[in-house]
């Protein structure tokens, strides 16, 4: 059996980047915090671009704890949505551009989220990566880590539970 010819690299990149852009740019709050995502294959890294309006303690100064929690939660939800939809995006079942406008596409909902503040967030860019510990039909468990200058020195970590979108009733 002959292996199908692999797609040209630019097609693969274009499709994946368009899907990720639609997923992220469609959410006003992600734009408000100025969070973007770096993609290597299916691996995502959240980037929180520092701005003075993110400061929570003007005397240190340090990033607001709420912003840190929001950054970790956004990274968890986007990573979970991305992994959940990746196969359908690859197969063309989900139109990359229509991810946010298509009402039939649903996103995971946060049930609970717990943040450990390990050190204060310095006034500079921060990075975060989410690890899906388990993703079942209904619930998912996700762990997230955030760091700044040194990946080995996390400034926050979190874990949370999410309700996965339920598939629409089967037409058959």
């Amino acid at each position, binding site marked *: 059996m002959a292996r199908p010819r692999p797609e040209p690299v630019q097609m693969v990149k274009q499709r994946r980047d368009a899907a990720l852009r639609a997923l992220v740019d469609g959410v006003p709050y992600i734009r408000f915090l100025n969070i973007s995502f770096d993609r290597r294959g299916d691996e995502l890294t959240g980037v929180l671009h520092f701005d003075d309006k993110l400061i929570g303690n003007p005397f240190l100064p340090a990033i607001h*704890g*709420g912003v840190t929690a*929001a950054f970790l939660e956004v990274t968890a939800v986007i990573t979970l949505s991305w992994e959940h939809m990746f196969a359908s995006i690859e197969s063309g079942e989900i139109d990359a551009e229509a991810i*946010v406008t298509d009402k039939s596409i649903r996103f995971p909902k946060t049930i609970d989220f717990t*943040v450990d503040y390990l050190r204060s967030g310095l006034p500079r860019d921060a990075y975060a990566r989410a690890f899906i510990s388990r993703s079942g039909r209904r619930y998912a468990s996700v762990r997230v880590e955030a760091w700044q200058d040194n990946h080995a020195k996390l400034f926050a970590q979190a874990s949370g539970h999410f309700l996965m979108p339920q598939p629409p009733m089967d037409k058959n």
Partner: protein
Amino acid sequence: MVDKTVLARQFIEAIPHARALNLTLTHIGEGEAEITLPYNEDLIGDPRTGVIHGGAISTILDTCCGAAVMSHPSAPGGTATIDLRIDYMRAATPGQTITARATCYHITRNVAFVRATAVDNDNDLPVATAAGSFTVEGN
């Protein structure tokens, strides 16, 4: 302890991110605080429904918990979050102001324990609840 109440209010209102979200401290004192977050389209988490993102709810709850700690009679000064857990009960109704109420129910020399609730116009069914521990600084 009027001075500390004034100090706490000034402290909260000097926070750049609290200003960015238009947070208002509506009550503070004796280990309790109340903060409001007006509805703002920039904070939408789901563009199809207009529901506010959970991250904004985290921010108001975290700020409110910190304010409650600072207002506690036994708290000598500043505080920082050690850990905060948030449970999301339901989506906030689009267009409505979120009100967070926090109580610092126990404080030691080093740690303050806080609970908080966030509601919209429906006071009976919270949007989210929070439980956290905070540092006690300045002693």
